[in-house]
């Protein structure tokens, strides 16, 4: 009884530690965050608008993205959308960084410095 409880606790602690470490890994360093904000506002902004209100590409504002699952938005950023003008950006960021961008887009994206 005690033994299985200990195992449960240990597993739980382990999972928590894992979750915490993934969250930390998903959070790019501040200098990289700055680069990503610049890339989204300026380079994604060529099609989506610097204020992300849309252009040739759709708006990337929180109300527009709310119904889209995060993983599908991450896949769109990384691999692009065939048949549309959206290219894949995997040369310039990894999935964790795309995930950070998606989370920020859904909250209201940071401004340029």
């Amino acid at each position, binding site marked *: 009884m005690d033994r299985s409880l200990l195992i449960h606790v240990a597993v739980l602690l382990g999972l928590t530690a894992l979750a915490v470490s993934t969250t930390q890994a998903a959070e790019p360093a501040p200098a990289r965050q700055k680069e990503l904000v610049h890339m989204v506002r300026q*380079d994604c902004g060529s099609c989506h*608008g610097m*204020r992300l209100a849309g*252009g*040739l590409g759709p708006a990337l504002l929180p109300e527009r993205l709310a119904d889209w699952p995060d993983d599908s938005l991450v896949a769109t950023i990384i691999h692009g959308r065939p048949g549309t*003008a959206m*290219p894949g950006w995997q040369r310039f960021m990894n999935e964790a960084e795309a995930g950070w961008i998606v989370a920020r887009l859904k909250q209201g994206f940071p401004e*340029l410095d």
Partner: protein
Amino acid sequence: MRLRPAIASLVAALALAGCATTPPEALRGTGDLGVVIERAAGRVQIVEHSTNSSLATVPGLGDLSHAHVTFSRDGRFAYVFGRDGGLTKVDLLARRIDKRIIQAGNSIGGSISQDGRLIVAQNYEPGGIKAFDADTLELLSEVPAEYAPGKFSKVVGLADVSGQRFVYALFEAGEIWVTDFTNPRRPTTTRYPAGKQPYDGLVTPDGRYFLAGLFGEDGISLLDLWQPERGATKILAGYGRGEQKLPVFKMPHLRGWSLAGGQAWLPAIGRHEVLVADARSWQETARVAVKGQPVFVMARPDGRQVWVNFAFPDNEWVQVIDTVEKRVVHTFSPGKAVLHMEFEPRGEEVWLSSRDSNRVSVVNTATFATRSELPADAPSGIFFTARGQRIGF
């Protein structure tokens, strides 16, 4: 007897007072003026290319993340189209906003009519074009880009041509439309099938041919405006040779500056090449390998050189093609994120904006030496008033 000198001195005094209150800028021409867009700040700088200097800054123009400018035929007013649908008429002499309206939710640019009386804006949201009185910016009419019941397209590539007509392409509809504003309140529109996903368009400097670059297929759609009833034909079809396209991180921009030496110099899509076609037969004559995905492919006004800038991530580079040798003769970086180039009207110098270096560089086109550098806050488009005298600008 004493009255006459008194009147004379009064007249002289009035004349002097007149001189003192007339701002010197009111007594100058505008043929060497232009505007530089400061995209993030929502401002324009008024610049002068005789002295390579900035004269003034005009703020309050809204979201200029994609801005376009057309000029009144007297060269006094710049009409600035902002991304947020703002249309601002800037007085280059008084150096201030003359009028400003919000005409759409999301706009991409606009142009001025042959007679100079209409400003036509092209919009993404709501998709379509709108005509305004050039003096008052009063809305005169609109043509929604409703290509099927309830379906609206984004409008790209708007160009003014003769007969108060405007030609443009519809991204989702894959069509070229020609709208005649002879009666500005009752425009008439003719539609032509063009090809998959036209992303921009241009009219040749004589106003005869409209070319729509296609994103969704390899090729360019061509409409002869002297014989529009023949419909649009495809040129440079299959230029990709079935090979896998490279990703396009920024759409190229087309304008009538693509014609040089009897050839059209056009950006390929998804290939790091400039395509060259004979401007009579429209057959491919060459292709020039370049450093990245071309965005602007602009001929120097005399046509002897073609200058090319590139999409992210190669956007720090500029290449110069010799149009006789059909090869790159110069490669350089004027700064980080080069967004636009504008030649002085006779082409001895070119202005280049480097967004991430916060400057505009003026480069001699014969020696490639940098002649001046002007500070600017994240500059994008550069537009000189000489555009006001050209078809399709």
